C-alpha cells in the first residue's frame, strides 16, 4: 500500500547538505502494522514528514520514491498531495494537546477533517464525528465534542486525533510516537484502539516509536533505524528472538524489561560512537543485590502520616475544592537500599519529594531523617540537616545552569556550604567517578549530550557526600541505551559512596531494575508497598496489577492480542 524506496533526506546547513535519512526503504501492506524503531535523532520522524510532503523548509529529499498504491507522492503536485492528506493517508502525532488548535472545539476540528474531503452537511458530519468518538470509547462523547483541547486529558485528546485520522477511512495511517506523552495505562488503551482500527478498517499502519515494548505489543513487522540508516527489518517475533544487527541486539538488551529483577543492564557502546560491534551479551558481572537489610538498623528516611492538601478555587463564585496531593503517606528506607516510588503523572510523587526536602511544608505528619524530624526545623538548622540529602532532576537540559562551567556546577554545594577550599579536589574526584574526563570541568553544559549532563548532575549531587539521593524521574528523558548507562552508574555509585536512594519514576521496568523495595502511589496515597520481588511476583492491589498489566512486555504473549 505504502512503499518507500531508497529515500534520502538531507538538511541544508551553511556547511552544505547534512544527510539525515540515508537511502531508506520500507513498505507497509494493507492491514499490516509496521513498526519503525529508533532513538532520538535517528531520522524516523523526518522520514514520516517526508512521506506527507510536510518537511521543514530547510530539509530536502535528495533521492528516492514514495509510492502510495503505485502513485509517486514525490512527483505529485501540491493540490494532489493535499487531496490525499487526511483522506487516503493520515497522521497521528506525538503531543496530542499541542497538535490540536487551542481556540476551536474538538468537535469542530473533527468535523473539519471530514468536510475537507467529503461533500456532506455540517449536521451529518457532527453525527459522524460523535459516532467516531463513541467507537473510540471516549467518556461522554457529546461533552468531548463541545470541549476545547485544554479541557481534555492527553489520552482523550489523542482519541480526538485518532478520530480525525480515521474520519475519512484512510488506506495508510502514520502514527508518530502516539503514546509517548501518555501514562502507561492510557498507552495501553490507545494501542488497543490502533490494533482494533487496523482490524476493522483494514488500514495499513506505520507506527513510529522509540519504545521496543510498544512495537512488541502491536507491530507485525519491524524496521530498525539508527542515524538515518536502516539497520534491520524483520517480523516482530523474529526480531526479538534473533536480532540480526549488533545495534538491535544492544537495544533489546539495554531495555529494562519487567521481571528481570535487579540486574546490571548491558549498554550499547559509548554515547556518541557507532553502535557496539562487540556482541552485547548480557554481562555476567551482575552485582548481587544487597542482602535483605536487618530490621534492627534504623531507617535513613522515615515518613509518618505525611499529608499535603491544596485548596483550589476556580473563581470568586466557585466553591473551594480540596485536592489531597499527598494523603497520609508512611514510608521508610533502610540504609544503602533503594526504594522505588511508582505512579502515573499527577499521583503526587513529585510533591512528596518536595515535602521530604522541605521545599514545601507538609500539613500533617513527620519527615524523619536519621531520626530527626525535618518538619520541626527551620532556617539554618534545616539547611544544615538537609545537606545530607541531594536530588537529581528529570530534565538534564534544564537542571544545570547554562551559565556555569562544569567545575562550578559540581562545586556549587561546597560553595554554598562554605567549603570552597575543597572544590577543586572534589570536582576532580567526582567527574571521574561519574565517568567523564577532567577536561570536562572547564566546559559548559550545552557542550554535552543528555546522558553526560545527567552524569554531571549526579556528580553535583554527590559533592557533599550525602546519605540520601532522591532521583526524580532521573532517567525518563534519556534514550534507552543512555538510560541503561546512567542506571548502571547509579548502581556503582551506591556501593562506592554508601548511598541510599529514593527512586521516583513512572516506569515500572526501570524501577524494578534499581529497587530493593517498592511503593506504588495513586491519587496521593500509597496503595501498596513491600520488597520489590514480592510486589512484582504477587501484586496485591488491583491498581498495581493494572499497572503491571499495562507495561508492554517482551518475551511474554502480548497483552494486546495479535490478529
Amino acid at each position, binding site marked *: 500500500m505504502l512503499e518507500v524506496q531508497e529515500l534520502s533526506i538531507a538538511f541544508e546547513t551553511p556547511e552544505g547538505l547534512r544527510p539525515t535519512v540515508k537511502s531508506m526503504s520500507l513498505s507497509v501492506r494493507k492491514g499490516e502494522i509496521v513498526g519503525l524503531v529508533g532513538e532520538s535523532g535517528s531520522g524516523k520522524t523526518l522520514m514520516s514528514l517526508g512521506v506527507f510532503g510536510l518537511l521543514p523548509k530547510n530539509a530536502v529529499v535528495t533521492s528516492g520514491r514514495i509510492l502510495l498504491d503505485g502513485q509517486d507522492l514525490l512527483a505529485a503536485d501540491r493540490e494532489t498531495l*493535499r487531496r490525499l*492528506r487526511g483522506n487516503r493517508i493520515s497522521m497521528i502525532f506525538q503531543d496530542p494537546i*499541542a497538535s490540536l488548535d*487551542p481556540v476551536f472545539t474538538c468537535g469542530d476540528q473533527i468535523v473539519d477533517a471530514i468536510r475537507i474531503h467529503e461533500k456532506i452537511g455540517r449536521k451529518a458530519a457532527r453525527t459522524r464525528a460523535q459516532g467516531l468518538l463513541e467507537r473510540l470509547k471516549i467518556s461522554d462523547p457529546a461533552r468531548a465534542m463541545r470541549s476545547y483541547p485544554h*479541557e481534555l486529558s492527553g489520552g482523550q485528546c489523542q482519541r480526538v486525533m485518532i478520530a*480525525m485520522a480515521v474520519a475519512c477511512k484512510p488506506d495508510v495511517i502514520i502514527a508518530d510516537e502516539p503514546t509517548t506523552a501518555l501514562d502507561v495505562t492510557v498507552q495501553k488503551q490507545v494501542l488497543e484502539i490502533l490494533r482494533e482500527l487496523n482490524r476493522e478498517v483494514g488500514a495499513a499502519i506505520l507506527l513510529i516509536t522509540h519504545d521496543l515494548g510498544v512495537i512488541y505489543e502491536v507491530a507485525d513487522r519491524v524496521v530498525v533505524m539508527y542515524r538515518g540508516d536502516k539497520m534491520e527489518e524483520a517480523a516482530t517475533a523474529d526480531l526479538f528472538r534473533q536480532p540480526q544487527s549488533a545495534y538491535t541486539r544492544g537495544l533489546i538488551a539495554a531495555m529494562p524489561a519487567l521481571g528481570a529483577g535487579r540486574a546490571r543492564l548491558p549498554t550499547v557502546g559509548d554515547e556518541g560512537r557507532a553502535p557496539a560491534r562487540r556482541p552485547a551479551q548480557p554481562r555476567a558481572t551482575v552485582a548481587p543485590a544487597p542482602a535483605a537489610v536487618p530490621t534492627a538498623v534504623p531507617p535513613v528516611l522515615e515518613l509518618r502520616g505525611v499529608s499535603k492538601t491544596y485548596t483550589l478555587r476556580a*473563581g470568586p*463564585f*466557585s466553591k473551594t475544592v480540596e485536592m489531597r496531593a499527598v494523603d497520609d503517606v508512611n514510608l521508610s528506607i533502610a540504609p544503602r537500599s533503594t526504594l522505588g516510588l511508582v505512579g502515573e503523572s499527577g499521583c503526587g510523587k513529585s510533591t512528596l519529594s518536595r515535602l521530604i526536602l522541605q521545599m514545601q511544608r507538609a500539613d500533617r505528619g513527620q519527615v524523619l531523617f536519621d531520626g530527626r524530624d525535618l518538619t520541626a526545623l527551620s532556617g539554618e538548622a534545616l539547611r544544615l540537616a538537609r545537606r545530607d540529602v541531594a536530588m537529581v532532576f528529570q530534565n538534564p537540559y534544564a537542571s544545570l545552569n547554562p551559565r556555569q562551567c562544569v567545575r562550578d556546577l559540581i562545586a556549587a554545594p561546597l560553595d554554598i556550604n562554605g567549603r570552597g577550599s575543597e572544590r577543586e579536589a572534589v570536582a576532580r574526584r567526582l567527574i571521574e567517578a561519574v565517568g567523564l574526563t577532567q577536561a570536562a570541568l572547564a566546559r559548559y553544559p550545552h557542550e554535552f549530550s543528555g546522558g553526560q549532563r545527567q552524569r554531571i548532575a549526579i556528580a553535583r549531587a554527590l559533592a557533599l557526600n550525602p546519605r540520601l539521593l532522591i532521583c526524580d524521574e532521573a532517567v525518563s528523558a534519556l534514550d534507552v541505551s543512555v538510560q541503561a548507562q546512567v542506571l548502571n552508574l547509579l548502581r556503582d555509585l551506591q556501593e562506592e559512596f554508601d548511598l541510599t536512594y529514593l527512586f521516583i519514576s513512572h516506569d515500572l521496568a526501570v524501577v524494578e531494575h534499581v529497587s530493593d523495595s517498592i511503593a506504588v502511589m495513586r491519587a496521593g496515597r500509597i496503595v501498596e508497598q513491600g520488597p520489590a520481588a514480592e510486589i512484582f511476583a504477587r501484586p496485591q492491589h488491583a491498581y498495581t496489577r493494572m499497572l503491571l498489566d499495562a507495561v508492554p512486555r517482551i518475551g511474554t504473549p502480548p497483552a494486546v492480542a495479535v490478529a
Partner: protein
Amino acid sequence: MMDMLLSSLAVLTRKIGVALVQLVLIATLVFSIMYVMPGDPVMMLLGAESDPSPEAVAAMRAKLGLDQPVAVQYASWMTGLLHGDFGRSVTDGYPVADYIAENLPLTLELAAAAVVVAMAIGIPLGIVAALRRGTVVDSLLTSFSTIGISLPVYILGAMLILLFALKLDWLPSSGYMNFSRNPPEHFRRLLLPALTLGFGLSASITRMTRSSVLDILDRDFVRTLRAKGMRERRIIGRHVLRNAAIPIVTIVGLQLGNLMGGTVLVEAMFNWPGLSTLLVEAVSTRNYPVVQGVILTIAGLYIFINLAVELVYLLLDPRIRRRRV
C-alpha cells in the same frame, strides 16, 4: 453551559475589581502630586519673584482648599470625584470637568483615527511579511517597521506638513474644524495628525503581527491541519490568524498608552485642541486642578482600555474563558 457563563463572569468581575482599585490608587497618587513635588504650589502660582502679600497667599491657599488638614482635603477630593467633580480651574473658576468634557472627545477622535490607520496598515503588512519570510518583501517590510518605530512623531509630522501643506498645498498644515460646521474640512484637518500619530503604531503592529503569525505557523497544530489536507488559505485565514490575534490585541492595547503620550506632541504640533493641549497649557500656567483632572482622565482611559483588551481576550481565547480546575 452554566459553569462556563459563571466562570466567565467570575473572571470579568475580578478584572473590573482590579481596575477599580487601580483607579482609586491613581486618584490618590494624583492627589499627592501637589505635596510630593518640591516647592510650595501657592508661591509658584503667585510667582515667587513678585513677593506677594501674606493676604494674597492666604486667599489663594483658601481658594485651593490648602488651608484645611490633608485628610479633609483628601476626603473632599475623593467624594468630589465620585460626583464627577474635578474641582475648579484656578485661572477662570470654570469647573475642570467642563474643560475635560470639551477636550476629551477631540483626543479620543484623534486616537481612534490613528488606531484605525495603524491597524489598516499594520496587520496586512505583518501577515504578508510572515508568509513571505526570508524574502526581499519580508526584509523590506521589516526595515519599514524599524524605521517607523524609530521615527519621532514630530519629525514625521513636520515632514508631512512640509510635503502636503507647504509643497503640494493639498491639506491644511494645522488647526481644527468643528464637525457640525464643515464636515469635509473636519476630516481634512484630522487626516495629517491621525497619519502622524498612527504611523509609529502601524510599525509596531506590523512587527508584532509578523512575529506572532510566524510563532503560530511553527506550532504542532498547524502541522495537524496540513496533515488533514486543509487548504493553506483556510489554515492561515481561519486558524493561524485567530490564534495570532491574541498577542496582536495585547500589543495594540499596550501601545495605546504610548499613543496617548504621542498625542501630547501631535496635538501641540497641529494645534489640535485636545486633552494634551489643555494639559500643556495648564502646566505652563501652573493650573493645578486642571493638571490633576487631565492626568486622572488619561490614566483612567488607559485603565479602561486595558480592561477592554482583557474582555477581547475572553472572546478570543477559550483557555482564559474556561480554566480547568
